[in-house]
């Protein structure tokens, strides 16, 4: 459904006066999501997760330059195609209620999404049906975003994305800070959408939430894909995981060892030529610092490490 290959995003910014500075927050990023599949993208803030979503939707700011290729249903995603497909074939489930129009009743916003998705004339019926599907009471359609509870707002956001009939749904950080029951409900909705044959890309820093719903997990670090693993590989001490960073991430969870590795992710304007994780890696050798390791298949997954 979606296939991203060797994606790079470079921003050009003015610093002082006419001095220009470039930085590349995403380099050599690979990912694919099939129909009927939930793929989670995990990584810390600044790893390029949300930029990937914006690149797929074609909503990057104008000072961004994109290299590499993004394909949707086998065909290259050009800016024209993105404009034609977003809101119809590709929809975003955003992070918070702040993405709803605060001055429009939520029912109208969902009807508008249905119209954009192509249900002209039947948008009313589509909105009522989607409200029933997500257990939103009929009277909720007349409420403004500030009047609905946090859990209801999440369901409105999912409803607005799903009512368009999109075959690829991108959920950007849909769970943090929510009560466990609402998290479970949101994740269940994503799973159901995949079961209907849609493709779901779940962007999150919460690896626990990702593992409860995803088929595969792509681990991002400093703007690149370090590993793509089956969710089932995250078990025990992480022996089945291929990249040292993924293992460290897994072990740092409170339900596992809760022991962090030192250091922090390199900033996008100071990337080294070698493996981006090498400065923090306990296995690193001089070869790791020499060149960026390619993404290669290992034990049914993909990894960017020469020692995996």
């Amino acid at each position, binding site marked *: 459904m979606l296939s991203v290959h060797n994606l790079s995003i470079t921003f050009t910014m003015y610093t002082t006066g006419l001095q220009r500075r470039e930085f590349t927050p995403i380099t050599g990023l690979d990912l694919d999501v099939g129909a009927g599949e939930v793929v989670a993208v995990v990584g810390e803030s600044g790893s390029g997760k949300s930029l990937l979503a914006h690149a797929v939707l074609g909503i990057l700011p104008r000072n961004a330059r994109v290299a590499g290729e993004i394909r949707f249903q086998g065909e290259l995603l050009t800016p024209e195609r993105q404009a034609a497909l977003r809101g119809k074939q590709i929809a975003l489930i955003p992070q918070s209620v702040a993405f709803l129009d605060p001055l429009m009743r939520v029912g109208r916003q969902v009807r508008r999404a249905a119209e954009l998705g192509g249900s002209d004339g039947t948008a009313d019926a589509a909105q009522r049906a989607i409200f029933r599907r997500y257990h939103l009471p009929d009277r909720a359609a007349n409420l403004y975003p500030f009047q609905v509870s946090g859990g209801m707002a999440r369901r409105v956001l999912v409803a607005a994305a799903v009512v368009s009939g999109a075959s690829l749904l991108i959920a950007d950080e849909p769970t943090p800070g929510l009560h466990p029951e609402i998290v479970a409900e949101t994740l269940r909705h994503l799973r159901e959408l995949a079961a209907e044959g849609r493709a779901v890309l779940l962007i999150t820093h919460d*690896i626990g939430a990702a593992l409860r719903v995803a088929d595969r997990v792509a681990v991002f670090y400093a703007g690149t894909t370090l590993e793509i693993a089956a969710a089932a590989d995250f078990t025990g001490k992480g022996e089945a995981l291929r990249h040292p960073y993924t293992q460290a991430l897994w072990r740092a969870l409170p339900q596992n060892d809760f022991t962090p590795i030192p250091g922090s992710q390199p900033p996008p304007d100071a990337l080294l030529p070698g493996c981006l994780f090498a400065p923090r890696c306990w296995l690193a050798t001089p070869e790791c610092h020499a060149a960026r390791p390619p993404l290669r298949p290992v034990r049914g997954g993909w990894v960017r490490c020469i020692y995996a």
Partner: protein
Amino acid sequence: MLEAEHIGFRYGPHRPWILQDVTITVAPGEIVGLSGPSGRGKTTLAKILAGYLQPQVGQVRVDGHPLPRRGYCPVQLIFQHPELAINPRWRMVQVLTESHIPSREILADLNIEPGWLTRWPHELSGGELQRFAVARALGPQTRYLIADEITTMLDAITQAQIWQTVLAYARRHNVGVLAISHDRSLLARICDRVLTL
């Protein structure tokens, strides 16, 4: 001992009560967890405990005294979103040294890179900013720390870095901590006891 007894709070005389008859104590060096569904007033309680809000009923006492009206508050609050708790017009070194000069060990434990000190807040990620917010709150006069979802927006490694630093500091300096979170496994891992609001 940090004590809040029979706290009642509402935003106006005819508004609904947000907190009613809430009693909570945190002993020096104790790590207490607080969880509960959204909208139950966890953040409101955090603000009351740290002196940002005055309750209509009840009082907050630290070692037998009411919270000071001016000067350094012995109860420090760290928020979920550091980008809202940091002056956007200050460089990070000013943010860091607002109340005291944090020790080199704290900066090293929190993995604060020296190069970040000259940056502006908008140039750093949420995880990087939160490390500054934690270092800023761990002043020598801090006796109690209220951590309101401080790692909810962060990845597992940064979360473990921050919490291990806070726990070690609390142990060494006998600082009591109230950790507010929805993450049951986090609270089970770090807390001596967990309360539900």
